[in-house]
């Protein structure tokens, strides 16, 4: 069948020779005119800085006098930084914690809200509310929650059950999980909205059929909702992975990378290189390395998830 179709289509699919007049008359020139500004803006503001960043990474500059070329010295400097392995491990640890504990939360919230017959808008609002709070304000608020003394909000609550007081951000072991707890709170609502929209797109006939067959809520979740959400879950997981590898605001404002570098991340290192040390070469070198790593991660992720996806 397909063979016949191909033979039939061949004559019509042959390209006509390019004709400027016809191209102009059919609006080709106008289309280009429309595209030029956006392409230029994109090139200048998006790719320009990226190229500049790559150039900076092989330079030594104070941004005032002329820069000098140093080859791969900046890369050598950042790769031999004794703090880099810990920063990389911390970043990976955060990504892992986020994936294991933070990632399922918005899916569960979305499913929960979707199951509600009444007042679902209110739960929707409540779930989304943290996303409206600016990160700096949210973090300052949570700093109070995490007060390590017995009078801290979380410690007071734990005290009712005879637990604590916990040191929260003041302990090397607890600092990173505390950051994950905050970012889950801050980010889950916004992600849940996306899942909720995707759930809305699942055919209700599937659920009706399952209900007739006597499937319970967990069974429906496992056999219908999650498989149907597979593609969006994969995309959200990639976005979350990329996001977690760029963790900066939370350790910067909560702990400054402490205690004893327990929350020092790659992005925080880049910031410190650039804005504390004034070493832009090292900062961009590490940025380029992180970008390459994230590109590779995305490619690997793409091929791995492609195998899992239905053909």
């Amino acid at each position: 069948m397909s063979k016949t179709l191909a033979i039939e289509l061949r004559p019509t699919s042959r390209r006509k020779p390019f004709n400027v007049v016809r191209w102009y008359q059919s609006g080709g020139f106008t289309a280009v005119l429309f595209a030029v500004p956006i392409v230029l803006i994109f090139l200048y503001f998006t790719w320009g800085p990226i190229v500049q960043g790559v150039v900076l990474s092989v330079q030594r500059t104070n941004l005032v006098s002329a820069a000098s070329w140093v080859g791969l010295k900046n890369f050598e400097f950042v790769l031999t930084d004794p703090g880099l392995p810990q920063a990389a491990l911390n970043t990976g640890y955060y990504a892992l914690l986020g994936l294991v504990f933070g990632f399922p939360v918005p899916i569960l919230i979305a499913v929960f809200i979707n199951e509600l017959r009444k007042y679902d808008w209110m739960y929707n609002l409540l779930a989304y509310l943290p996303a409206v709070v600016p990160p700096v304000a949210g973090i300052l608020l949570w700093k109070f929650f995490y007060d390590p003394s017995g009078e801290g909000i979380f410690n007071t609550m734990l005290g009712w059950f005879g637990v604590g007081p916990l040191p929260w951000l003041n302990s090397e072991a607890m600092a990173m999980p505390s950051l994950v707890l905050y970012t889950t709170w801050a980010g889950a609502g916004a992600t849940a909205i996306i899942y909720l929209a995707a759930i809305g797109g699942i055919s209700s006939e599937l659920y009706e059929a399952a209900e007739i067959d006597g499937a319970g809520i967990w069974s429906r979740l496992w056999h219908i909702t999650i498989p149907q959400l597979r593609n969006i879950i994969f995309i959200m997981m990639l976005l979350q992975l990329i996001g977690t590898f760029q963790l900066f605001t939370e350790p910067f404002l909560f702990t400054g990378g402490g205690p004893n570098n327990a929350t020092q991340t790659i992005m925080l290192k880049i910031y410190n290189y650039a804005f504390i040390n004034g070493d832009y070469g090292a900062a961009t070198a590490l940025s380029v390395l992180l970008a390459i790593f994230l590109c590779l991660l995305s490619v690997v992720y793409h091929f791995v998830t492609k195998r899992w996806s239905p053909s």
Partner: protein
Amino acid sequence: MKKQNLRLTLAVGTIGILTALTACSAGGTGSASTDASKADPNAKVTITVGDEPTADKAADRANFLTMVQQFEKANPNITVKPSTEYWQAQTFQAKLAGGTLPTTMNVSLTYSKQLIANHQLPNMTPYLKQAGLLGELNPLALNNVKDSKGDVYTVPYGLFSVGISYNRAIFTKAGLDPNKPPTTWDEVRADAKQIHDNVPGVAGYAQLTTNNTGGWMLTTMTYSMGGTVTNKAGTKTDMGPATEQALQLLHNMRWVDNSMGSQFLYNQDDIRKSFSAGKIGMVLQAPDIYTQAIPTYGMKPADFGQSALPQANGTNGTLTGGTIAMFNAKATPNQLLAAAKWVKFKEFEKYFDKTTAVAGAKADSASNKAVGTPGLPPVADSINSRYLGWIKDYINVPLDQFKGYTSSTLPLIPEPADAQNTYAALDPVVQKVLTDQNANIKQLISTAAQTIDRNLSQAAG
């Protein structure tokens, strides 16, 4: 697949945002010429000046704008454009590179040194001489803003040294004499313990630890115990028994006496808030904490006490810090001369002209700002005393409670080489000692020393 490509682009693009912050033209004019004759004092010139008070500080702003008018009247060839631009880490370097910084603005002394070392500031010696400002500056203060050749790059005017701030009310509650703050580190430890034992919920002594302040204060403590952090040439670390002693003292107060409370991740703002709220008995601070503790955080003036930095192993000294006026490396010689004249008028006129002195103090007082906070005068002591006499009716700072600080004659020691970078490497050392009972102090110092040495050799290029 298309979507996937989009994600890939997104990944690269996000990184691009960061690089965008730094991606600016690498070209520039370099430092200014040392030839003073290039600046024509009568040429028509326009300069921008930073740190204009924002509209919410009405009295300050009015006073600032009046000063601009007076300056323009006295210098008809100079047009001054005020700008609310002030120093911010995130945007400073990009603006410096883009040439959009004001011709002059204020910067913390610690960054001034880094800017000088990075050759990001113009050599101001000829212009300051031409403006007649160089001779008026306190030579002690000037030492902080010179390079190895003796050239002056910035103008120091708000200098201070680190001391110890304490809460007089807490001292009284703990049974301590608020008029006898500790002068040695042994006394600090004993007082902190007494506060901890007698005033529940209060940390006897608290330490700055994050955003490079941990290293800053460890350096201060090291100085006070007779040690040093980097060698004189600024090429290597030189930490010894004094740094170990400082860390051991913190370890003992934290783990033996338990007199340091439960919060060990303090940056400057957080510790000032906690201190002002009466949760901390003693903390290492410069007296400028007063300008924030009382007007901003509502501490009672009567509760505030400031003394000199406690010492150990004899009298050794303290660390200096403060505010300086910096100048834009991309400005023309005429602009730099005009900016030097402006700084002289804005920051130094009050020391020589009674009307300016009184007007400034009156505006500060009306804005509820602290007037007369002690510090190191940027001019000779006698001139400073005369100035304080002029504004004495407006002084709202309880100077009696600063006696321990103002009567101190401790030697002033400049910051270590590559200061912020060095402090950053020492932050985790202090944090580890305060959060891990089994911290190995010697090993922590040696690891930090390796990092600092590496940074110093990178900074040297």
